């Protein structure tokens, strides 16, 4: 794990992805690597504690006492404008798309536009030789599919065959439809109304030609994720619910042929210290509670470790604030070693 270049921190919601991505970044920087952390989840307090003030546009240098750490928080709305500018075949096309009434709704609502933006930004960093190490915190997606399928979905949305069908001109699609495009159009018109269909049709037409760029990106993203320079770190906490989530995540990775480098079981409750025989009743009650938390978790941690096709790290619950450089750095070192 130490020798990889790109670290992707994924897993179910609320397990500590953002915290551990920051930890990993700090630890790597302190080891002398020029590191960049990309976070998508503006957990404000954490960002502030790291001396982080603004949004993406510019990278910010974080003071971690030695080493070089850069951080950036993705501003997905504006980031997408940049994506469109990049893939537009002409300045006129870019302007038409950005000004289209459906564009803003698309960015806001199109499933996976945050995930897409994260993947896109990630590629930029990978191609940038200035960074030795890149750490990416993944968006709080409900399922892994959203993360990995975002580029494909985006490409599908802009698929030329969809556009051609919309315009009623796709010969291939005419063959596939027994009833023909006209009937289909009639049905859609009934549901959506002609005005919307026209608007969507014109939007798709404006996007024409950009699909190739998105499709290429999709392949590049997959290639990067499969590379032996990439470490996919799955974070979870030990419980039945999260074990189910992790199993789904693993399946998804397998389907996409993306190797899992490490499973991190976070927030484990420690076994309480050996208690003296004459412990007061109140304390005793807490002891028994803590012990049974530990035992319950341990059973799931063992099961999850057993099911994992990779090395596992266990991190214990930390008491007190977890947003200062020293504490985060300690977690990061535990992860790496």
């Amino acid at each position, binding site marked *: 794990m130490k020798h990889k270049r790109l670290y992707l921190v994924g897993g*179910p*919601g*609320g397990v500590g992805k953002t915290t551990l991505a920051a930890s990993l970044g700090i630890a790597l920087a302190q080891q002398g690597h020029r590191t960049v952390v990309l976070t998508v989840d503006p*957990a*404000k*307090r*954490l960002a502030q504690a790291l001396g982080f003030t603004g949004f993406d546009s510019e990278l910010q240098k974080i003071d971690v006492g030695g080493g070089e750490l850069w951080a950036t928080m993705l501003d997905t709305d504006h980031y997408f404008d940049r994506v469109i500018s990049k893939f537009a075949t002409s300045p006129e096309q870019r302007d038409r798309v950005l000004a289209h009434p*459906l564009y803003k*709704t698309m960015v*806001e*609502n*199109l*499933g996976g536009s945050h995930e897409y933006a994260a993947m896109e930004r990630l590629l930029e960093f990978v191609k940038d030789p200035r960074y030795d190490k890149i750490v990416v915190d993944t968006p*709080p997606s*409900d399922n892994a599919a959203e993360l990995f399928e975002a580029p494909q*979905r985006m490409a*599908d*949305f802009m698929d030329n*065959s*969809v556009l051609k069908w919309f315009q009623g001109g796709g010969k291939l*699609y005419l063959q*596939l*439809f027994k009833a023909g495009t006209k*009937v*289909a159009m009639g*049905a*859609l018109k*009934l*549901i*959506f*109304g002609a*005005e*919307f269909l026209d*608007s969507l049709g014109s939007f798709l037409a404006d996007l024409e030609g950009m699909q190739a760029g998105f499709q290429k990106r999709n392949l590049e993203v997959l290639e990067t994720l499969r590379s032996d320079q990439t470490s996919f770190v799955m974070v979870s906490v*030990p*419980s*039945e*619910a*999260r074990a189910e989530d992790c199993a789904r995540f693993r399946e998804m990775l397998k389907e996409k042929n993306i190797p899992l480098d490490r499973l991190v079981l976070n927030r484990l409750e420690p076994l*309480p*210290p*050996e*208690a*003296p025989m004459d*412990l*007061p009743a*109140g*304390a005793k*009650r*807490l002891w028994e*509670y*803590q012990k*049974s938390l530990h035992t*319950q*978790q341990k059973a*799931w941690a063992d099961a999850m470790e057993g099911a994992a096709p990779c090395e596992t790290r266990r991190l214990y619950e930390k*008491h*007190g*604030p977890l*947003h200062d450089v020293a504490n985060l750095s300690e977690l990061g070192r535990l992860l790496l070693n």
Partner: protein
Amino acid sequence: MSYLDDSLRRKAIFFTGKGGVGKSTLAWATALACQRRGRKVAVVGWQPAGKPAPPALVDLGIPWLGLDTLTTFKEYALTLIKFERLYDSVLDNRVLRTFVLAAPGLSDAVIAGKIWELVNRGEYETLLIDMPSSGHAKAFFKSPLGLKKIFKMGFIARDTERVLNLFQSNDVRLDLVTLPEELPLRECQLLKGELQALHSFSFGYAHFNQCLPNFAAFEPTELDRLEGEVERFARAVSTEHAEQASRMAAHGLGLPTVKIPRFATAGWKASVQSTADFLEAL
């Protein structure tokens, strides 16, 4: 009115919050508690078509409705165009799949429409809705507003209006779920503000889930009697308990709170049952 009594008079309750705070646990436990009182309930969740109900829910005997965008859209389209054959031969293809998944806000709005339909049909008296986590939940509640701008007439306009009324109805409650920790609480405050700006929801309760149990608090004299590692541990837990309490006292969410302890279990069934017992006793 008690938490359970309030829940029993609602037709639908949405549970929202950050990932991993306990939305599912609370939705399921509230369902279980209502069901024990003889109410006909179902849990609604977001799930790809064809996936079976969560085993723990089956085990607890709670009906589960897993909503999937494409299936739901097909149902919706069929109510409008009536002929299944027409749908299959014309609409159920790659183009439409892409269209439904990608068209602005449609996938969320379709699910919202389905929830309206379920409430309106009344087969289940109370629906407990286990929302996806914050970001997606916001998009979900926002979706009818986007559609309203695009669709001024026709079926979608009509159904969007129904959904908007549902969101603001008194029969429907919106609960927030958070942990008693600093970052999740802050996120919950932000979420409340953003949701409030969308619709005039009937907000219900703020659930502080997985709190340290009350016996984690110690009197100073008790701590003085401990020593060594044991003392350090007890002090750390006790301090955290006090911090949780002061955070909760100043939560600023403007809602009645439900404080749920963290139960010493890591399994689905046991945590849902313990939570249901706890909610019933409130």
